[in-house]
């Protein structure tokens, strides 16, 4: 966080040399910056203005702490989202006459004090998402002539309130966001439907040599293995290249297993003593591989 300090001091030095700013004010600014940093906030100089941010590491920020920000005056961008501020702190913002972007989302603010925000002469962006504001705030904000974007998702603001503000101030883009209660009907929780699966052919074998030498590459698909025999079996994938056996799972009698695979892959089934019982070669579609009950 201290990385910006040299730049800040340089900027203050410029003010001294170029503008002849009173040193008392410069001292006050330096103190305010260090107080903000102590609270976990960050201050960056951009152009002639400041960007002040508390939302990552400065969430302990309270109403009275906003007084430090007010001292900087030339703040163009302020993010106090997710902090502990309430409506009582908004009074400090009225000094920030150059403020264009204000993030107040996910804080405890409500309608009280919104007149201080509405009175900001250059405010363009205001984020009030997940706060307690209602249509009353929107009425106050109608007087903010510069406002262009307003975010009010998950607040007490109603569609009627938004419509009223739009009527008075057509130039504001108001984002009310999704109605989550309706979202469930657009994206219902997906219940997996049983897939139509092609059956894979079971080929009985008594030794490894009778099964395919190796798997070939193909397209991706899913196999549903079902063990209908009366004893547990082991499932091996026959690898590409050298055709090594790679153990995947042990299936108890009656067990099923979904397995990602590729067409032309070969799967060897053995008993618990690794004695081969049979194999499947995968088809290029989702499939069902039944280990038959009559397997020895």
């Amino acid at each position, binding site marked *: *966080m201290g*990385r*910006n300090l*040299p*730049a800040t001091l*340089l*900027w203050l030095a*410029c003010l001294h040399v*170029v503008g002849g700013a009173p040193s008392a004010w410069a001292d006050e600014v330096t103190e305010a910056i260090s107080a903000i940093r102590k609270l976990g906030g*960050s201050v*960056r*100089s*951009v*152009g*002639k*203005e400041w960007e002040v941010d508390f939302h*990552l*590491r400065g969430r302990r920020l309270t109403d009275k702490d906003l007084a430090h920000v007010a001292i900087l005056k030339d703040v*163009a961008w302020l993010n106090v989202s997710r902090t502990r501020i309430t409506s009582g702190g908004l009074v400090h913002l009225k000094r920030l006459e150059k403020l264009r972007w204000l*993030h107040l*989302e996910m804080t405890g603010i409500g309608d009280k004090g919104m007149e201080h925000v509405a009175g900001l002469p250059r405010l363009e*962006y205001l*984020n009030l*998402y997940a706060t307690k504001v209602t249509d009353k705030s929107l009425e106050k904000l109608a007087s903010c002539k510069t406002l262009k*974007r307003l*975010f009010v*998702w998950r607040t007490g603001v109603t569609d009627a309130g938004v419509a009223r503000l739009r009527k008075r101030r057509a130039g504001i883009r108001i*984002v*009310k*966001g*999704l109605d*989550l209660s309706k*979202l*469930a009907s*657009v*994206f*219902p*929780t*997906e219940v997996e439907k049983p897939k139509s699966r092609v059956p894979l052919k079971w080929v009985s074998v008594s030794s490894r040599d009778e099964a395919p030498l190796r798997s070939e*590459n*193909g*397209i*991706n*698909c*899913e196999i549903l293995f079902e063990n209908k025999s009366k004893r547990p079996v082991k499932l091996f994938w026959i690898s590409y290249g050298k055709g090594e056996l790679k153990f995947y799972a042990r299936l108890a009698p009656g067990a099923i297993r979904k397995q*990602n695979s*590729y067409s032309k892959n070969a799967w060897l089934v053995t008993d618990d003593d690794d004695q081969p019982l049979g194999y499947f070669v995968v088809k290029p579609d989702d499939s069902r591989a039944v280990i038959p009950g009559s397997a020895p």
Partner: protein
Amino acid sequence: MTTRESTILPSRISRRNLLCGSVGLSGLTLPTLLSLRADAASLPRAKSCIVIYLWGGIAHQESWDPKPEALSELRGEFQPISTATPGVRFCEHIPMMARHSEKIAVVRSLHHHTGAHGPALYTSITGQKAPMGKAKDRKNWPSLTAMVSRFCDVPDGTPPAVAMPYLNYDNGALIQGQFGGWLGVDYDPIMMRTPAGKPYGGTSRYTNRELELKLNLRRNRVEGRQSLRAKLERRVGTQADFQRFNRFREMAADMLLSSPVKEAYDLENEDPRIRVMYGDHIGGQSMLLARRLTEAGVPVVQVNAGAGDLAGGSGDNWDTHRDHFPKMKKRLLPVFDRSISALLTDLEQRGSLEETLVAVLTDFGRTPKINKNGGRDHYPAVFSQILAGGGVRGGHVYGSSDRDGARPLANACSPRDFHATVLTAMGINPRTEVPDREGRPFQICGGRVLPLF
């Protein structure tokens, strides 16, 4: 964490440039200073960036640049649909993105000269021609993700860049260009897996051997492990390699213990309805996690959308040499459309889209000609990529391709130009010089900034 060139005024002027141009501060006249400041103030500036990489090469014809007028044997079976922007049409299978067109700038005239996946990914993600070398060679050019993170301040315990859910492989070979390259190991994006979501059908057979963070460890276990490590280290000593390894371990521990990143990683904290909106698969949940991580202060997150290994185009990735149309229609486009449009909706309603740049990159386009297996093959001569948010002007198409989608028709541009645009949106001057590990200065990009702001 990061060492920046200078934090004075115009946000991304290097110390070197400042000194060269002015012989120190004393030579910097007031008008120059003020004009530089004015430039800085007028530039758009995103605070964070989500890079979505479509591994395998998405067909431009079946996404952002439909070609209904193409010759019948080239046209394909999909129809174009109108979008929220008059005159702009997308493919019919990305209807949700069509509704978001007012937020998107589409670049339809990108091209490069590399038709193989590995070098094409390198060119697309670094903006440079691919050298012959190892995937993690420190002479490689940094990825866009790594480069952007180089210029971002991050709070302690926050990774400067994260990539997920898989690294990109081609038939088992890890691809060059996905790391920090000559910027050094500090800028290698940290790999993460999503804690939830079904895998893509073509889950990588090659698991990442890199650091995989399991952020669901309990605090007391992490602290127990830290104290055990401290005891062991007293015996082993502190060689340079060991210290470098330590950096990752410390970062991992910080992430496990520090609340914002850990909190972001825990998708259980997200409203279940929002989670459903993104889709219950690793692609959608990765995009959700990307949003949560950028909110938690991670400046750049890369989502590799598609299975990690191309495996000859057989998995769920964009390398559709076979059965292009059914695969795009059934598996790839619906998943992608739903999750990326959920990301844009979600960023928009939280008011963070204007400060979050979403950049969608891919290897290349696909051939106008449909091959005998019903697929389209690699095609770098023209392809499309998109940008959204982060101060980029939406509802905008830059450049065009010809009738068959075979060549750029107007405003041809390169991946390097696309990078210059992304860097500018992030407030980084693409002509900034940065020293490599040996102290040699490199211009970070040098491309032409596309007029998308």
